[in-house]
């Protein structure tokens, strides 16, 4: 059973094309993350699924039913917004209970109390049920927002960068919780983010969007190791993948029509016994890892330093590139081969 499907969907806002001939399908119980920079059409895609926008052409299906022309209320979807969309002046309990009291879904008081209690416990806000939402911290407010989506077991959860307004520590906690909850509830989630780490850790599959078009949709591992285009390769991995013209730096053993080569920072060995002469331009120590910006033959590369190697800016060294992990692209920036899968 498909959780949700978009078929050849177009959406424009005046002159701007937000979504162009987009087709994608989310399986039941799947966690799909849409990744892309601002303006790639992620949010529009989500709003099309929710019914907050109607497509210019194409079809939208939720739980195998054609909902293209239906309003949000008729689609039985839940939406978590980037901003906490809570009802001010009401308690956490009232906010969580609200969707259960809506017309056509009205539950009796006892079931509401039970359901709200379960969700609040799951999100660890059970002790805050009687507090007004305005008294909560940012993380708690966003948990209530997520809770409001979770209480009513909809066909489809849509989340628009729900963690982006939280601080790093909370984001990490909620990320783990969200994944756990999704597994527990067997929920179908479409999740929008521009944070590649969220995409890699949460997703069953990642959909990479570029200017309203779907560039690639694959599991995180495949998307990372076999990116469909240079653009897709640049969306995943921090620091970004190094893109070098084929033929330079001894990268010659690729397919014959290779134009550019992608090398992940972790595939460059600095302080090697032999290899290209290089100069360290800058060193970024991030605690658990150290990244060096190095210059070879006028080309600048990011490299992940092995533990135990300490380098300083200005130092000269030798680098070795594990070309067996290189990713090869043709002159149209499309993938033609990668070391990881042969």
């Amino acid at each position, binding site marked *: 059973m498909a959780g949700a499907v978009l078929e050849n969907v177009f959406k424009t806002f005046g002159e701007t094309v937000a979504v162009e001939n987009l087709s994608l399908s989310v399986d039941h119980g799947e966690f799909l993350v849409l990744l892309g920079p601002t303006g790639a059409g992620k949010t529009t895609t989500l709003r099309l699924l929710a019914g*907050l926008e109607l497509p210019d052409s194409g079809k939208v299906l939720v739980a195998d039913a054609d909902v293209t022309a239906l309003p*949000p*209320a008729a689609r039985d979807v839940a939406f978590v917004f980037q901003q906490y*969309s809570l009802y001010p002046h009401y308690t956490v309990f009232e906010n969580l209970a*609200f*969707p259960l009291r809506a017309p056509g879904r009205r539950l009796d008081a006892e079931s509401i109390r039970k359901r709200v209690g379960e969700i609040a416990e799951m999100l660890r806000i059970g002790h805050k049920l009687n507090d007004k939402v305005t008294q909560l911290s940012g993380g708690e407010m966003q948990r209530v927002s997520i809770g*409001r989506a979770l209480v009513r077991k909809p066909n489809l959860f849509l989340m628009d960068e729900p963690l982006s307004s939280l601080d790093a520590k909370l984001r990490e906690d909620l990320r783990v919780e969200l994944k756990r909850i999704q597994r527990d509830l067997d929920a179908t989630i479409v999740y929008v983010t521009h944070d590649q780490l969220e995409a890699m850790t949460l997703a069953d599959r990642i959909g990479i969007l570029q200017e309203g078009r779907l560039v690639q949709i694959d599991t995180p591992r495949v998307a990372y190791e076999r990116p469909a285009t240079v653009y897709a390769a640049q969306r995943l991995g921090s620091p970004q993948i190094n893109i070098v013209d084929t033929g330079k730096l001894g990268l010659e053993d690729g397919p014959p029509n290779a134009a550019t080569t992608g090398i992940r920072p972790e595939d460059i060995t600095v302080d090697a016994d032999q290899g290209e002469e290089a100069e360290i331009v800058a060193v970024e120590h991030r605690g658990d890892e150290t990244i060096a910006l190095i210059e070879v033959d006028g080309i600048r590369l990011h490299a992940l330093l092995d533990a135990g190697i300490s380098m300083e800016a200005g130092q000269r060294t030798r680098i070795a590139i594990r070309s067996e992990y290189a990713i090869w692209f043709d002159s149209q920036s499309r993938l033609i081969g990668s070391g990881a899968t042969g």
Partner: protein
Amino acid sequence: MPDEAQRARRALTVSNRIASKLRGLSDTAIAWIFIGPTILLLLAINIFPLLWTIYLSFTNYRANQPGRPVRWIGTRNYERLLGSEDIWGYLQATAHFVIWTMIFQIVIGFGLALLINRNFRGASFWTTIILIPMMLSPAVVGTFWTYIYQPQTGIFSYIVDFFAGTGALDMIGSVALAPWSIIIVDTWMWTPYIMLLCLAGLRSIPDYLYEAAEIDRANALQRFWYITLPRVLPFLMLAVLFRGIENFKMFDLVVELTSGGPGSTTELASINLKREAFEKWRTGYSSAFAIILFVTIFGLGNIYVKVLNKVKS
């Protein structure tokens, strides 16, 4: 040319001298220099008159008899005021006026704001049109409404008679209708103000709240009750605070329309105050009345602001 350069240099040394003088001052001293004029002005035109009025309210002073010795008579002015039945009549008329104008203006103003907020074509044009009464002088408004209210030739009486068949209505001359005549004019003039503040509140509500509610299947009434009203209420209450205080002191419109009549049916507190102070020249007595009004407004205003702050948080 050298002349000019010299002058420029001299100007620079002067400004340097001022700067060095200022540099010697502490931050507190500079702060006092900045707020000093304002404080002096405030003392001269607000604080001193208030204290002087409090003093006068305990005397038998009459401003039209400057030579007469001023005698301290203790709380006698207050006793006479609070014991007088007329005073309660004036206060009652004032309360009637304030309460009804606020009710009408909240309902109509909020309603108009909801309509304007739908952003139909020409919404900003209609907003401007609606705001016109608010921008007119109360003296002008009062005068032309006396023509509108004119029982034989006025349009108001004609329209009401046309639809309700009431016959000629003497809005200003009749004891039953006169209080409503000023309520109608004040509502006509100041509803736009309430609308404007409600509109500011409505515009501050982000769309995603309504979208979230739509997904939650909230109906129109729930959307209003859970989102619109709580968000607009602080703005609305602020508007009512401003207009309520203004209307408690209502003077100009009433003078133009009814001058307190017929009899004393529309003699609001400030109308009566002006009569006592500047027609009967009972300065001490009217000072006491002014103080009572001041304390009343101040007290009610404070309670109101407390409630407002609670609503805001």
